[in-house]
């Protein structure tokens, strides 16, 4: 599903963010990506969604070589990959439901479909009773669940979560992880970038550890080692 072959990313000639990384993530896996600050985790996410281009190496997503992806194909790539971030990225003047609907609107989906899909994904994340509230009227966990709902509207095969629990307390964080596990159980490949030792250790899933831009460990049932 995701395949990296000797991927390197230099921001400037002397800023090495990712250094010769190779790994393979199979469909339906749940993988945690851990490592200290500044070791290239977010850079990897950006490479996967075509926001940055690899300096060297080859990158495949769903059998699609995206090292050579054209600018006009990037929107289609992004509809196949859901992404969520630490800062939720919700629009404050739209209700939760409108935030989810926005993702469908801007890709030209007809109104009838939006009316069907948006409440459906809100139900999957358990927010069907709060979907008419505005972001400032709900908790951080609920905001993140809205962001997850939004990332699900195109039924992506891959969900990338870049420190989704970074702004949440441990209870809310656990709820988000449970939700990601639930989504994974439907068959979606999940890549979880995190700093949270407890979460990684409790997951008992595959763990990729980065250090200074290099892949230093890849354990099938991993622990947070750094």
């Amino acid at each position, binding site marked *: 599903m995701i395949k990296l072959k000797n991927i390197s990313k230099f921001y400037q000639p002397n800023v090495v963010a990712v250094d010769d990384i190779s790994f393979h993530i199979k469909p339906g896996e749940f993988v945690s990506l851990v490592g200290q600050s500044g070791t290239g985790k977010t850079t990897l996410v950006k490479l996967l969604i075509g926001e940055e281009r690899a300096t060297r190496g080859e990158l495949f997503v769903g059998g699609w070589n995206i090292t050579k992806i054209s600018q*006009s194909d990037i*929107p289609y790539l*992004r509809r196949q990959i859901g992404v969520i971030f630490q800062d939720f*990225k919700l629009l404050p003047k739209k209700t939760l439901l409108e935030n989810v609907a926005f993702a469908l609107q*801007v890709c*030209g989906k*007809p109104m009838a479909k939006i009316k069907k899909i948006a409440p459906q994904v809100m139900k999957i994340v358990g927010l069907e009773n709060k979907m008419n509230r505005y972001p400032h009227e709900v908790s951080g966990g609920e905001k993140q669940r809205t962001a997850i709902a939004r*990332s699900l509207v*195109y039924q992506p095969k891959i969900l990338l979560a870049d420190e989704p629990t970074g702004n949440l307390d441990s209870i809310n964080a656990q709820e988000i992880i449970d939700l990601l596990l639930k989504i994974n159980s439907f068959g979606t490949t999940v890549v979880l970038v995190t700093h949270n030792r407890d979460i990684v250790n409790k997951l008992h899933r595959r763990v990729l550890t980065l250090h200074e831009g290099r892949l230093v460990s890849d354990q099938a049932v991993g622990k947070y080692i750094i």
Partner: protein
Amino acid sequence: MAFLLSLGRIIKFSFQDIIRNIWLSLITVMILILTLLSVNLLLAVRAISGAAVGTVKEKVDINLYLRTTAERDSIMALKARISSLSDVKEVRYVSQDEALSVFKRDHVNDPQIIEALRELDKNPLTPSLVIKPTNTDDFDNLINELNKIDDPIIESRNFEDNKLMLNKINAITQRISDVGFAVSLTFMFITLLVIYNTVRVAIYTHRNEIAIMRLVGASNWFIRGPFLVSSVIYSLVSMLVVIFAFFLFLNLLQPYLETFFTGYSFNIIAYFGGNFWAIFGLELLAASIVNMLASLVAAGKYSHV
């Protein structure tokens, strides 16, 4: 169908964008109005001076003043001789009496002159031959020919006045056109900068939306489309305001033109009305295209999030 749906949404986003930055939108429209007004004023100046040149050309003629003692036969012989010149369109004989009545008519509002005339007991005017050249732009050749004719009945010749007048009008027109052109160009340049900046600010205000749009896979056209549509809306609104204001102005101007162009039918309103689409349609098209290009450049440069 999907295209129309997207277009509808793009237009909706565009209106939201205009309203969210309403002051900036107003300034943009204002500067567009100034630009379009200056272009149309330039056109008006050109039309009016064109008409002015036309009236003067109509009046371009060369006068040969004849001695009062000249015999009618020799006058007719001279007339025939001049008529046969290649550059002459028409020669008309104005008798002494005719000259006097024309003079009186021209000075009917000038009692002093009429009084002075009455005190003279004889007609002070001379008979003349009025010659119309075929080519009103260039009749140097004709003047040369006329200078060669040396008939004793010719008292004096008046060759240069009208030509001077024409040259003067042409010079003034050229001057106004040049200044107008420079002003219009300046306004166009300012418009480009303003539109560019407006789109930049609009992108900045919408940076969160744009970031999310990119993230969820909205196409480039969906992201940039609203800014393109906005610039067309700005152009359209300013064009409408300009058309309204400009015709109002023309209505005020027309009475003055009528007194200026007495005896020569020139209607500036009819001129702009008759060429409505050629003038305003083209201006709208040009403004829209230029503005779309400016906003495309701005969007291309600033919407990569």
